[in-house]
């Protein structure tokens, strides 16, 4: 019963999130909504890793790979946006799949440090390989998104694309975790040695999740690149991942809708209160501290206390 209600509520939230800016029909609100969506997708990729009890700090790096891949493939190679969007997910997923078996042999703090280093390697590659990635100047004149020949130049049309992408991602995660994958992932987070002793190849599954999270991060990168039509390396650094992590903690990292809710609450702030950006940082930090102390389940944990699980470590 609670499950069904939370599903209905989630769909309603997503619809409201799409419709309200469309009805207000002001570019500023549409712009905010698009940013929320892109941040939320990246936050979902962080969420996937948290789901197996690991924190990956390379997610913004994967977002960057998706962004650069999509930008270069459409602008210089000339492949259609639809294919570039897909490849923006596939390429980071393949890279994560390739390094996964190496990185994933470590867990906990070591994994965090390794992914931190890996994320920095990605960003430094963008900076250093100027002939391909344009160095610190980044890449500009990225063609706008277009679906089936329809150019999504108007922000409202791009918002629709963003919301559709976010909804598909959330739905896929929901379906996947409701099934057998959810059982395996739950066991990985709770007691991995026991799970392995029952015949589950923990490393392979962790790599699968890592790959999937890189896929999603790459998609957010592609949307980001084609929305802003300009990208540069510093957008994909360590603090971008940290922001996505904050969205999870604030929204409630135990819940699939947590990252989206966190983005809904936090992503607009820097745009709305531009002149107060410094105070916002302090506010973010204090909010994060207080939440870690008093509300480790995030705001969704407050609203849905009966759904909570797994906080008694």
């Amino acid at each position, binding site marked *: 019963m609670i499950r069904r209600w939370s599903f209905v509520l989630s769909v309603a939230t997503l619809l409201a999130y799409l419709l309200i800016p469309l009805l207000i029909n002001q570019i500023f609100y549409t712009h905010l909504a698009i940013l929320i969506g892109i941040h939320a997708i990246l936050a979902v990729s962080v969420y996937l890793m948290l789901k197996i009890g690991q*924190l990956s700090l390379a997610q913004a790096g994967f977002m960057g790979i998706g962004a650069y891949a999509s930008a270069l493939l459409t602008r210089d190679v000339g492949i259609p946006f639809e294919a570039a969007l897909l490849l923006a997910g596939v390429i980071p997923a393949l890279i994560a799949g390739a390094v996964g078996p*190496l*990185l994933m*042999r*470590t867990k*906990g*703090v*070591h994994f*965090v*440090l*390794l992914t*931190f*280093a*890996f994320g*920095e*390697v990605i960003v*430094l*590659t963008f*900076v*250093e390989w100027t002939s391909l990635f344009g160095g610190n100047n980044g890449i500009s004149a990225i063609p706008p998104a277009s679906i089936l020949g329809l150019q999504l130049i108007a922000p409202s049309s791009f918002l629709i694309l963003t919301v559709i992408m976010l909804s598909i991602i959330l739905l896929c995660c929901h379906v996947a975790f409701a099934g057998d994958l959810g059982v395996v992932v739950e066991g990985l987070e709770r007691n991995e040695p026991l799970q392995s002793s029952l015949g589950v190849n923990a490393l392979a599954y962790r790599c699968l999740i890592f790959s999937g999270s890189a896929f999603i991060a790459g998609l957010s990168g592609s949307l980001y690149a084609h929305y802003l039509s300009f990208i540069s390396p510093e957008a994909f650094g*360590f*603090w971008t991942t*940290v922001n996505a*992590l*904050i969205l999870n*903690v604030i929204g409630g990292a135990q819940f699939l809708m947590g990252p989206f809710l966190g983005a809904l609450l936090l992503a607009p702030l820097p745009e709305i209160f531009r002149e107060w*950006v*410094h*105070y*916002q*940082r*302090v*506010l*973010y*930090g*204090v909010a*994060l*501290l207080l939440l*870690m*102390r008093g509300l*480790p389940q995030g705001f969704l944990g407050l609203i849905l206390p009966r759904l909570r699980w797994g906080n008694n*470590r």
Partner: protein
Amino acid sequence: MLVQTLVIAATSSAYMMLLALGFTLIFGLMRIVNFAHGEFVMLGAYAVYVLTVVCGLNYFVAIPVAGLFAGLCGVVAERLIFRPFLGDELGAMITSLALAIILQGAVMIIFTVDQLSVPRPISGVLHFGSIYLPNDQLFVAGSSFLVVIAFHFLVHHTRLGLALRAVAQDTEIARAYGMAPSVILPLAFGIGCILAGLAGALTVPLYAVNPFMGEAALLKAFIVVVLGGLGSLPGAMIAAVVLGTTDAVISVWFSATMATLVSFVLVVIILIVKPSGLWGRA
């Protein structure tokens, strides 16, 4: 060229040691990966700026004061913020991120995001024949090594050091011998932050001061500590020399970014072969 490179290598190694020793001390004792470590470096740097440029104090007097200020902030942070997360690695890590953001934001509010600089107190070069060595770099290298030696003495030849090592080995046994972790841990956190603050204070005249300087410092501390083995003090010292030297050589011959890239790749490869780091306990 060779001697110049050596001096850069020594400076860079000494600086990395300062950064890494504090970071690894805090991890070794409390299992806290302190993402705010770079911000304590920043605190040291801003403290020197305030003391010298604003208050007109002598730079050499300002250095220890700045270090102590960073250390004091560390003690307060440990008591107020990190205490409840003892034993919860992920929670402590997120908390340290929050602290980093707060410190950055506070500095932005007070000093804006502009670059600030402290006039160089030391100038001139030493020259032996055709070799020119900048005095300010020699000063940084020399005083960093002095601080490291002092730290080494503290850890190995004092009662406090004995207590630190005991707590790092086994909190329960240390408690049984009357070494209260509630006193030792904030002290250790403070000492780690003093080292970070000194690193910031010593290098202020060489680099400019800005609210984002912590990230680069954190990166350096990270790779050194990871290479040396998390929580290992001798590992951090050896790794600082290894990375400081490679860093210097590659920055001189290629570029600074390339140097960072190479050290990262090096660390990733080593970690894949030996996840506990070169000198870490498994």
